[in-house]
């Protein structure tokens, strides 16, 4: 039996879909777990779920990152019971701006930018988006601006930490057989030896 190109592409597509589903599930779990942690203010989140978005961005491209972010926020808010609450809109705005910045940076700079830089940018975008919507929707008070620098610095720190975590995770995943052909963008069909066509992973 010979493996045709069409089969390899089909296998690749299926594999992507499955791993993206797993990533989304993990992101929702992290998102929910994080809500259980005590925090000084409701908006100070560590953003662990972004590790999975970063991984998806670097493995499968911008579209995957978008679907992961939106799924995570939608399903995560269902789990937490905060759908359409102010917190949900804050989360959505932050996630949207962060993902836009991350995908944009990746598209603009390609290989010249790594997970740490993208993550830092995304975290700051998240902070800015959240504060912007908090300003527009909730409190039009100049005192909110005083919060911005602290928020921004905190986001930068967590962004760098998450970027390092994503970098480690990417190293780990890329060393695995199921991901060895996965790079950004469509195509890059996997060429497995015949016996590995049904990889037990």
């Amino acid at each position, binding site marked *: 039996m010979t493996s045709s190109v069409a089969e390899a592409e089909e296998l690749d597509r299926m594999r992507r879909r499955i791993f993206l589903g797993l990533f989304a599930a993990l992101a929702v779990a992290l998102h929910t777990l994080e*809500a259980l942690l005590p925090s000084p203010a*409701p908006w100070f989140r560590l953003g662990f779920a972004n590790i999975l978005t970063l991984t998806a961005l670097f493995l499968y491209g911008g579209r995957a990152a978008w679907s992961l972010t939106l799924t995570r926020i939608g399903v995560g808010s269902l789990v937490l019971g*905060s759908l359409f*609450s*102010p*917190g949900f809109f*804050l989360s959505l705005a932050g996630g949207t701006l962060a993902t836009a910045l991350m995908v944009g940076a990746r598209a603009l*700079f390609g290989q*010249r*930018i*790594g*997970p*740490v*830089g*993208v993550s*830092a*940018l995304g975290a*700051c975008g998240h902070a800015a988006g959240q504060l912007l919507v908090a300003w527009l929707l*909730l*409190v039009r*008070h*100049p*005192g909110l*601006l*005083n919060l*911005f*620098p*602290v928020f*921004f*610095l905190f986001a*930068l720190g967590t962004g*760098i930490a998450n*970027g*390092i975590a994503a*970098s480690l995770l990417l190293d780990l995943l890329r060393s695995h057989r199921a991901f060895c052909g996965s790079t950004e963008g469509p195509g890059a069909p996997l060429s497995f030896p015949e016996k590995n066509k049904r990889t037990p992973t």
Partner: protein
Amino acid sequence: MALGDLLRRTTLLDRVLVLVLFAAALLSLFLLRPGARGELVIVEQGGRIVYRAPLELERTLRLSGPQGETVLNIAGGHACIISASCPHKVCMGMGEIARHGELLACVPNHLLVRIEGGEKRDGDYDLLSR
């Protein structure tokens, strides 16, 4: 994690980006630091305003009430009560005030000193959400 490993994981652009964002954060910290100082000192006695002047105006007020004299000192952008004739001296223990919304009160002398103007101080939540 070793620093060398960390640097190996980042590209040049990553480092530049992080530095730029850090600089932006510090700059915003500098530009947006809380300018919550108040502007006016208002002294009320028995519900009537007996003194109203900018906080910058340095002076010492001698305010007499039912219990005797209370001395309010306004200097260096702060207001504080430096001597009081009341038994517990709670008002002296309240320290210095300078920000909007802060109060000094001397109950036996029916005295209330408050600061107005400027921005609201930090820590006043309008709303909490999650």
